[in-house]
């Protein structure tokens, strides 16, 4: 089989129902390309893992999908629209440890933020919004911590709260930035359960992660990135030693059956 597995056959006309289409996209900062010729797509109800070393462009790709950085070649279509137009139905989950734990805000208030765009500028979130937020929090198993200050929760619990906030947005596309970093097993389970529930409701999910096991567990497809795209397709086809070695380059060290040990794993912070 080809070393560079291309994705499933993609017609040039966008079929109804593709949640996210990245069409030979190139993103450049000041002339140097951060991403080159990435071609992939996500269908509703599908989960795609973004896999690659640090600095590979995973965060850049997510920013491009959110419309925060422009595409210099190719195109990105989100729910049939340009990225900036689709934001209402797209939810982003950052890494919990980028947020200040001393910030004076409660868990419930964080989750309620997910309703802001629906509420609009001059109004306050109403009873319906609060109900949706409470349900979202329950979905990640933290309803009992609603009144606590966000920073008093553990890292894994905080990540779950951020996912709850995204769930409260009722998104059709969900983007998660390294959600499993430093997360305990219990929280990991809770995250996976909640993501699975969203999938069942037809949301498309993109998860950038270092954790290949979880990628196998939770995702249908994977996209291997290191500035270029080294593979895109069903997980089992793409997460192979050969492709991983190609993606991680000199950072990939050891082969153990179908596992690859990477020399420089998990440095969590993104710029």
């Amino acid at each position, binding site marked *: 089989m080809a070393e560079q597995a291309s994705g499933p056959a993609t017609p040039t006309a966008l079929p109804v129902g593709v949640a996210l289409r990245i069409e030979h996209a190139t993103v450049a900062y000041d002339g140097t390309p951060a991403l080159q010729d990435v071609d992939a797509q996500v269908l509703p109800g599908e989960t795609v893992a973004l896999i690659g070393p640090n600095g590979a462009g995973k965060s850049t790709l997510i920013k491009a999908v959110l419309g925060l950085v422009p595409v210099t070649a190719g195109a990105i279509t989100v729910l049939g629209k340009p990225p900036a137009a689709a934001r209402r139905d797209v939810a982003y989950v950052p890494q919990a440890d980028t947020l200040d734990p001393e910030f004076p805000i409660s868990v419930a208030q964080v989750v309620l933020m997910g309703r802001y765009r629906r509420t609009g500028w001059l109004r306050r979130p109403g009873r319906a919004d609060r109900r949706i937020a409470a349900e979202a929090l329950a979905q990640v198993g933290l309803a009992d911590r609603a009144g606590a200050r966000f920073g*008093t929760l553990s890292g894994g619990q905080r990540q779950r709260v951020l996912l709850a906030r995204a769930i409260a947005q009722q998104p059709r596309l969900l983007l998660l930035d390294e959600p499993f970093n430093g997360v305990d097993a219990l929280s990991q389970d809770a995250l996976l359960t909640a993501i699975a529930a969203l999938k069942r409701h037809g949301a498309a999910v993109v998860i950038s992660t270092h954790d290949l096991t979880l990628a196998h567990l939770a995702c249908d497809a994977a996209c291997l990135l290191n500035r270029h795209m080294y593979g895109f397709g069903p997980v089992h086809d793409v997460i192979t030693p050969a492709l991983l070695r190609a993606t991680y380059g000199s950072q990939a060290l050891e082969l153990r059956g179908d596992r690859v040990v990477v020399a420089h794993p998990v440095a969590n912070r993104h710029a």
Partner: protein
Amino acid sequence: MRSVLVEPFTPPFMGRALAELLLLALLAGVVSTFVLIRRLGFVADTMTHTVFPGVVVGFLAGGAGGVFPGALVAAAVTAVLLTLLTRSRRVTDDTALAVLLAAMFGVGVVLVSRRSSYSADLTAFLFGRLLAVTPTQLAQTAAVTGVVLLTLGLLAKELRLRAFDPQTAAAMGYRVWLLDLLLNLSVALVVVAAAQSVGTILVVALLVVPAATGRLLSDRLAVIAAVGVLAVAGAGYAGLVVSYHASVTYGLRLASGGTVVLALVALYLLALLVPLVRRRPSDVVA
């Protein structure tokens, strides 16, 4: 007892000073909460320096009546420049601020020293003239308070989101630079409004200490703001009472503006003691 606590405010100039401080309590108490969560303390300090040339130019151009518009212009320009500078990643926040601060303050000093007797005006600018607050100044402060509280009240939830999680705010489609500009402008307005009465050196105290005090006592943003407002109001009242009695009864000169700020800091120190008295329940937040 009544004479000690109420009598100081019978002369109109004392009544006006108190009214000004109560307005500033509302204004600074709320704004300092946002300064706290956005860590804008140094920005606020920078602005107290950069309004200086505006004050001087305004004074040279239009006498005492030109000070307010001059300061407003300088403060607005600073807010815009700061927002632009910190957006471009070439210069770090602190460097940009320090350069701006030094440049504009230097310009102000050069301008003002071309007059022969400038020390009185400079003193007034740095330390304020709390006892010389005019009805016009009161009206100006009230107008600024109204505008700023309205803006921040309407944008409170977006501002809090931006402060807490700027990435997600941007992802949701909020224009982070616009929110920053509006908050910077609000801080600038507070600097302008308060500088005339308590002086620029003390304005920073008003923008930082109230919310810091509130933060010691609560985890909830609304409570922090409320504590901030009450702290400034209380300190204003106490400071005026003390400086009045010191002067009238004991012949001691205690600058009113400075006494108010000392009272404010005293409240902060008291708040510091609270966790020692009872354990702060850290997860009782509604």
